[in-house]
């Protein structure tokens, strides 16, 4: 569909339903509407098969702006409304976009937006660290509490119940058996079979959105690098992109290439590590040790050439922190050659294991329809036939110069998600080689940066887990007034609840690993 057709269809629909709007062509087409039309417009968008991408709020002194981002025919569309005064009520859109539910509850817990007609308005990010009707992102909420009082566990959280004579409940977490992040999983099982799984997160809530306020852009990038340690490059690039777009900062071409090199390296490290992790969760330790070895070699190169094993703090406003010299490019290319060969050989071995295939095929099945309804991203979506890859669909430099390979599967099981990651790793190897060969010359950072006060923009990046967003608004001094990072895990975690049904509880670890959402990235 051409640029205008989708807009015309949308506008006709809005007119037909008497929805008044103000449309502006800003960074993306932005529709400002009345709060009362909030759920109506999302119904229209759902009718047009728009994909829901995120909803967040922004507290301005006494009122609140709320934004929702959709993607329609591969064009982004930002819908905005203003809530002028308490009680800041807003019709919930989770009935038509279930994926919005947790983000809405997060927005309620932190900003005090009251949701009307929400199918589920239990607290989400808030446990017991602050009280109901207190909202950390409000101006009068102090960043630090003066008195110390021990915070109790959130033991009375009203989990869904399943009744029945042979139903039994298995609570797991927040602390899990392995070396992983904390979160709670509540299973209802009959025998070994999972009837229902409910997730409860928020344990690693660190007040990221609150402490971001007032930071300088440079300080914010350090924070962004630590929103989710495994997606450090993606989060930093996303935040930098938002600030640079808001202030019209031009990033030198060489820096853009280097950013993509860093991002692809992050993607490969995580994919390789998780491929072994998935195999390990069905008892195939060989695979785990092999991928851990490859990942370690990869990370050592990161430290050697980019000064950080997890590539933290490698991106700065207007560019990147470090350049690479021709020798380093050579050694990166050489490493690429050895590691990709090693990887191929390893994949050949594991693909030759019928018992592995037997464990992974049909396990943790996520139907296309469910994945679509939940708006799943990245490999979770792509293994169930949902074709979203920002590098291709809404390409940004330098990806617009390359043909990013189309990886799409439709079986929707753990095996498909594994295959998608194998193919994506290979495609990233190729892309890396192309990026290293095509690396433009010139500066690595724009040294003349003026930040535009009171500006705002979105950053959108293809993180290894999928489309990642960051919304940033600068204050009148060019410091951060609002930072909202939306990790792709927001849209993938609910898929785990869906795909575990009817599996045996013993397969939960492998199903979980095949989704591998970030806890820190959503707890914020």
């Amino acid at each position: 569909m051409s640029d205008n057709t989708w807009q015309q269809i949308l506008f006709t629909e809005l007119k037909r339903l008497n929805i008044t709007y103000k449309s502006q062509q800003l960074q993306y087409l932005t529709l400002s509407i009345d709060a009362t039309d909030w759920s109506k417009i999302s119904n229209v968008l759902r009718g047009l098969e728009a994909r829901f991408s995120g909803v967040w709020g922004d507290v301005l002194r006494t009122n609140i702006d709320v934004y929702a981002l959709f993607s329609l025919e591969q064009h982004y569309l930002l819908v905005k409304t203003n809530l002028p005064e308490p009680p800041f009520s807003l019709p919930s859109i989770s009935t038509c976009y279930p994926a919005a539910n947790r983000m809405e509850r997060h927005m309620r817990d932190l900003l005090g937006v009251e949701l009307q007609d929400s199918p589920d308005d239990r607290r989400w990010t808030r446990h017991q660290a602050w009280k109901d009707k207190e909202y950390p992102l409000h101006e009068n909420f102090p960043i630090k509490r003066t008195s110390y009082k021990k915070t109790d566990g959130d033991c009375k959280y009203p989990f869904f119940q399943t009744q029945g004579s042979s139903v039994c409940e298995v609570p797991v977490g927040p602390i899990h058996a392995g070396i992983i992040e904390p979160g709670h999983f509540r299973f209802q099982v009959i025998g070994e079979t999972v009837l229902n799984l409910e997730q409860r997160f928020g344990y690693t809530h660190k007040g990221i959105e609150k402490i971001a306020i007032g930071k300088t852009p440079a300080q914010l990038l350090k924070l962004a690098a630590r929103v989710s340690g495994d997606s450090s490059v993606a989060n930093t690039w996303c935040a930098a992109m938002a600030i640079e777009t808001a202030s019209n900062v031009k990033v030198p071409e060489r820096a853009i290439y280097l950013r993509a090199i860093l991002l692809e390296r992050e993607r490969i490290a995580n994919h390789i590590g998780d491929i072994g992790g998935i195999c390990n969760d069905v008892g195939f330790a060989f695979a785990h040790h092999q991928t851990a070895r490859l990942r370690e070699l990869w990370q050592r190169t990161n430290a050697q050439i980019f000064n950080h094993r997890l590539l933290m703090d490698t991106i700065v406003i207007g560019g990147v922190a470090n350049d690479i010299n021709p020798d380093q490019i050579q050694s990166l290319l050489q490493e690429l050659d050895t590691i990709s060969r090693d990887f191929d050989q390893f994949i050949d071995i594991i693909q030759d294991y019928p018992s592995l295939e037997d464990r992974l095929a049909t396990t943790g099945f996520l139907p296309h329809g469910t994945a679509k309804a939940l708006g799943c991203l990245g490999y979770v979506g792509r293994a169930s036939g949902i074709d979203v890859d920002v590098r291709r669909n809404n390409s940004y430099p330098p990806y617009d110069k390359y043909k990013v390979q189309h990886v799409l599967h439709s079986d929707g099981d753990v095996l498909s998600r594994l295959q998608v990651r194998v193919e994506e790793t290979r495609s990233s190897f190729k892309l890396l080689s192309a990026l290293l060969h095509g690396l433009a010359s010139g500066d690595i950072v724009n040294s003349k940066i003026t930040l535009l006060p009171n500006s705002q923009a979105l950053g959108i990046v293809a993180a290894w887990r999928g489309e990642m967003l960051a919304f940033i608004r600068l204050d009148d001094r060019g410091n951060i007034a609002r930072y909202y990072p939306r990790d792709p895990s927001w849209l993938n975690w609910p898929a785990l609840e869906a795909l575990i049904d009817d599996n045996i509880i013993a397969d939960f670890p492998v199903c979980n690993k095949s989704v591998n959402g970030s806890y820190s990235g959503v707890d914020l």
Partner: protein
Amino acid sequence: MFSVLKKITKIGIISEKIIQLTPQDEDFKQLGLALKTQISKHFSGSVAIRAVDSGSCNGCELEIHAINNAFYNAEQYGIHFVASPRHADILLVTGTVSKHMEEALLRAYQAMPDPKWVIAVGECGINGGIFGENYATLGGVSKVLPVDLHISGCPPTPTQLLQGILTLLSQAK
């Protein structure tokens, strides 16, 4: 099956001794040598660690994972990670201690049998790191637990982690 064995033999043993990881560090040479005796003496040959994320960004977790890979091979020193705090000698805590994890962290500590040690990992574990102390975080493990050793870094490298754990073991009596 044969392909797996072939790959394993072809790669061979790649584990590095702590001395190789820190060649410039003379003290560590001594530490590496003394350690086996320490572990056999005080921990009957093996020391059990329970890792708890008390509100980290998960960067520290990735590096703790790495000390178990074939290169660092923490098991060569008798160090292994256990699933329950009830089996653990050492609580290895990452993160700034979010208020939402405070209770769980305390309970994990209480579940450990005596004698027990606590290591706080990363800048977050020391003082909250970039997150500091705020309405949602306590800003460091020592705010809630008696910490025996801090390992700095954001995140600490696997070598720093190993050094830290080994230092604690050499001091533990």
